[in-house]
């Protein structure tokens, strides 16, 4: 009889399998460093319309990040973090998904929400925590959530979304829907317990989940050499029996191809897939960080310029005759105007009313919360002069 687990070949060779292969897992790319199509590449074709849409969204995302980061610096919003350097991962992966696929983000994937139609105004409302914010002013900036866009509200603790993605995929599978769960994680997040159990569960339950790891080299100030000793994240898929691939995260076409194909396989074959997108975190971790304290400025500059995913994709789009300097200028002017207007509108809008402090903790406020709200209203009446003017009572 075989060991539980099935037949296995025996050997007389006493040898340890090395912790790392001699050669690293290769990285799939479609475009070269300058945005030129490589020869003999098997990739998903994109139409002119699709390519222009992807590019325009990458530019919009880039501009959003620059302007909103500045807004935080000016004290207009309390916190922001950018996805600079990761525009291709954000937009191209989103473009490869269907609107029915449920997205569970980490926190550096607002480009996915942008692709799905979240407007500048909707973003600004959340950042300002005003009364039009879908989160009703309850979460910190960047922690977007929108059920109509199938984008689950972001929760700060790292990796908690991975087992939840398995639960969502399980639910989609039970309903036999033509959709999958898609969840994002950074390189640092793969150290969390939930990463391991999430991947293991997805494999065992045969759930259609795409695990997209943005390996951008840094977890705040922790370089990946201090995060793990494996060959990155892609090799971990094998450990759980999950098909995996490593792609050039700065190559929009490579990301698009990998995600599109992964999605088809995941849904058809009821399997999770792990995608490691190699990239670089050009921005600081967030507005609370100054990354020049732990990494060389010339390294940041190099990735910002020579390896910029937006300019790389622009080269390819332009080489097909689908873009021009005029189009670029027009786009940037339009986005800038829209964004500044949205920020202004959001700033002038009232905050959510006091009632929203106590609503939604449960479906209906229980007696103790009703009491607490009544007490608070009493206190406010007695000290109206101390109460903020932009918060309706």
């Amino acid at each position: 009889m075989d060991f539980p687990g099935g037949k296995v070949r025996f050997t007389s060779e006493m040898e340890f399998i090395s912790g790392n292969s001699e050669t690293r897992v290769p990285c799939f790319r479609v475009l070269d460093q300058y945005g030129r199509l490589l020869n003999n590449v098997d990739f998903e074709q994109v139409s002119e319309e699709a390519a222009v849409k992807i590019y325009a969204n990458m530019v919009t995302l880039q501009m959003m990040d620059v302007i909103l980061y500045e807004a935080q610096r000016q004290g207009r919003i309390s916190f922001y973090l950018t996805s600079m350097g990761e525009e291709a991962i954000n937009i191209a992966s989103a473009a490869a998904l269907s609107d029915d696929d449920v997205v569970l983000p980490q926190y550096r994937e607002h480009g996915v929400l942008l692709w799905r139609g979240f407007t500048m105004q909707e973003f600004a409302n959340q950042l300002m925590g005003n009364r039009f914010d879908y989160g009703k002013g309850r979460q910190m900036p960047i922690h977007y959530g929108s059920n109509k866009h199938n984008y689950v509200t972001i929760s700060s603790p790292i990796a908690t979304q991975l087992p939840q993605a398995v639960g969502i995929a399980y639910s989609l599978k039970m309903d036999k829907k033509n959709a999958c769960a898609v969840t994002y994680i950074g390189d640092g997040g793969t150290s969390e317990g939930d990463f391991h159990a999430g991947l293991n569960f997805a494999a065992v339950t045969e759930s259609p989940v795409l695990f997209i790891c943005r390996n951008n080299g840094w977890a705040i100030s922790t370089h990946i050499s201090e995060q793990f000793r494996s060959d990155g994240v892609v090799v971990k898929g094998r450990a759980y029996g999950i098909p995996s691939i490593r792609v050039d995260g700065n190559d929009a076409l490579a990301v698009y191809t990998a995600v599109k194909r992964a999605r088809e396989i995941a849904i058809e074959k009821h399997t999770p897939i792990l995608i490691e997108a190699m990239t670089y975190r050009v921005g600081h971790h967030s507005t609370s960080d100054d990354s020049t304290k732990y990494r060389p400025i010339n390294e940041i500059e190099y990735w910002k310029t020579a390896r910029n995913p937006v300019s790389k994709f622009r080269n390819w789009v332009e080489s097909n005759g689908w873009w021009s300097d005029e189009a670029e200028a027009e786009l940037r002017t339009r986005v800038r105007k829209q964004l500044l207007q949205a920020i202004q509108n959001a700033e002038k809008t009232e905050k959510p009313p006091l009632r929203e402090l106590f609503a939604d903790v449960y479906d209906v406020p229980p007696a103790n919360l009703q009491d607490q709200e009544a007490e608070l209203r009493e206190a406010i009446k007695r000290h109206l002069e101390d109460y903020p003017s932009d918060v309706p009572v």
Partner: protein
Amino acid sequence: MDRDPTVCVMGEDVGHYGGSYKVTKDLANKYGDLRVLDTPIAENSFTGMGIGAAMTGLRPVVEGMNMGFLLLAFNQISNNCGMLHYTSGGQFKIPIVIRGPGGVGRQLGAEHSQRLESYFQSIPGIQMVACSTPYNAKGLMKAAIRSENPVILFEHVLLYNLKERIPDEEYVLNLEEAEMVRPGEHVTILTYSRMRYHVMQAAKTLVNKGYDPEVIDIRSLKPFDLHTIGNSVKKTHRVLIVEECMRTGGIGASLTAAITENFHDYLDAPIVCLSSQDVPTPYAGTLENWTVVQPAQIVTAVEQLCQ
């Protein structure tokens, strides 16, 4: 599960094994492997999975093989289960039930004898109920499953063998209501779960000694049913709380504060709270008995309270 196809079960060994205390026995045969899901050993993760499934329209019942192991799931329970409905602005709801056997058993050792209700009670957004009889176990389970809020249902390891005649027709109990076990005039005894039985045993002795205790099984640990409790306090003016939680930071501590705050004027004596010792539950049988409240102590406490 029969009535609503979105109800599903997940946990370790809940499928063909039927659960560590056989609570899910035969469900896998009836409803299949997908609706009764055996999970790998990672509490934080299958709780997270349950939360994800709940957000997309299922009503999962997540089993902790022993409630104590759910400490590993604290992150998901607190940060996601309790918070996501609120932080998403009401967009995502989590109608999940988290249940399992807990409490002090017979020589199961410290890690298998925990009272998690004290650790979870502060988490905003969750509800907690403790069942104690076959009748209220069924009614509360149904109520918990049908609730739109996340509910933690505490079962007790020593109460699974109880037998009781229960109605054939369908009934659902109110999650926020306490249960009047024995009406009385002299003292209000508030208890829940297994301690209800120690209280009732003490009550027999007390009745023989001429006392008339009112016994209320509070059932709802979060929020407290202050309406029922308040009416009792206004009648008897004396309160004894008997719980299995530890003295420090337990349900009794919170209940004492709530009653004092709301019904101070009606009390003729300070509230007495009998709780377990602030020690990890020992394995040795005699030591274990002395960490929890025994009927004799309850009798003495009532006698002192009524002097």
